[in-house]
């Protein structure tokens, strides 16, 4: 594979664009320059760090470094779900539900892709496992977070209506049906929409990367399609598990609504 490697000089030239951006913010009084600077620095540090971490892991033999890093990714993605909730369940359940769902979905989908589809040698080859797991976790995380957020907010707002349905003899899942449906839709719409737009407006990131790295466009397409299927499947599974889990945790075995288990 051949591609043009970037020098530090190239990167600093590209960074000029950020300075222009910052200059505009100051000139127009947008007040964004501070956030812009901090987030640029974060991006720089995080990406450089990940570059070195991946370089190190790729150089290791044996699966443990790959597996270990996979768990770190999982823990961070689980926290990200939590951070996106306006209302959280009290206690460890808030973190537990999102993270366990992600683990279940991320490992099933990645395992499926690695074990049956790609079958790299060795099986744990980090350069396949980690990017694929990352893409699945990143997208599934968005679906789960949106689904859980939509459900908990709509339950909180519609508490009285739901309790009226319970009073009239509806089991908990029947009383919550409209809310669950709405939450599942919210979680799944982004990936469904992005499938429709991909390829026309922009090339998906992975495909772009492979093409620049010199991979044949048809081969790059095949990878991208596989990833899209994995992501769509993973997001659907994850959203269902996250939303149903939230519905269960916000009710109890006596079919009561337990909104007090949420805190802002």
């Amino acid at each position, binding site marked *: 594979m051949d591609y043009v490697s970037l020098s530090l000089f190239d990167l600093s030239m590209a960074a000029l664009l950020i300075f222009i951006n910052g200059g505009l913010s100051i000139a127009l009084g947008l007040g964004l320059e501070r956030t812009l600077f901090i987030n640029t620095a974060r991006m720089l540090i995080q990406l450089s760090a990940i570059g070195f971490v991946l370089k190190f892991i790729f150089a290791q033999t044996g699966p443990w470094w790959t597996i270990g890093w996979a768990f770190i990714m999982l823990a961070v993605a689980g926290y990200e779900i939590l951070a996106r909730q306006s209302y959280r369940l009290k206690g460890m359940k808030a973190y537990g539900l999102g993270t366990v769902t992600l683990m279940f979905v991320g490992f099933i989908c990645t395992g499926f892709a690695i074990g049956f589809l790609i079958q790299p040698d060795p099986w744990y080859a980090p350069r396949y496992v980690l990017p694929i797991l990352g893409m699945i976790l990143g997208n599934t995380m968005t679906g789960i977070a949106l689904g859980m957020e939509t459900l908990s907010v709509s339950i909180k707002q519609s508490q009285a209506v739901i309790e009226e349905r319970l*009073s009239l003899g509806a089991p908990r899942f029947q009383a919550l049906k409209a809310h669950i449906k709405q939450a599942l839709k919210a979680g799944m719409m982004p990936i469904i929409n992005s499938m429709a737009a991909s390829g026309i407006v922009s090339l998906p990131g992975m495909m772009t990367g492979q093409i620049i790295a010199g991979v044949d466009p048809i081969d790059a397409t095949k990878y991208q399609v596989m990833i899209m299927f994995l992501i769509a499947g993973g997001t659907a599974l994850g959203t269902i598990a996250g939303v149903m889990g939230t519905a269960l945790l916000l009710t109890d075995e*006596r079919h009561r609504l337990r909104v007090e288990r949420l805190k802002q």
Partner: protein
Amino acid sequence: MFEIIDLQNEIFRPVSLSLKKGQSLIIKGASGSGKTRFLRALADLDPSKGNVLLDGVERSMMPAFEWRKKVRFVPASSHWWHERVGLHFDRNKTDLLKWMEALDLPEKLLQWPVEDLSTGEKQRLSFLRAIQDQPKVLLLDEPTSALDGQSIARMELMIESELNRGAIILLVSHSPKQIEKYGAISLTFKSGKARLTSDEKEIS
């Protein structure tokens, strides 16, 4: 027979009483004293300790939604989830039109969007919605709070006919007339503590 044995939660102290078929009980007390929370606990909408039995069967012996089909809580302000009023009712099963006439509600209201109903119409319709599957116990939280004189009289007739069919009714009310009519037994809440009186005599 509706038996309440040492029912309590963090809002109200233990309450025990029993009511026979067709009997009513008035619940009195200032707002915030625990009346509504007591009714909610009876319908098992809020967690509580103690026991409640209907015709000798403990509520824990059946799923909560079965219990609520028999022991029905009707809140002071009603909530609706379908767009049209009529969708909340099962018209084959009940004497709905007859009841609507008795409460002076024209049939055409069933076609209306819920948001076009007045507060009083909502309150009367929510009562009908609650009795359409003929629950054995009715827990009514101020069922006439949004009604004018004439509608109150019609609602009281309706409550009367529910008692005659054998329903047991627990009624939160501030109206002296209703207290006199249904309050042979009454439960007065004062900051979470309930006092039970029967014909003006304290019994516990």
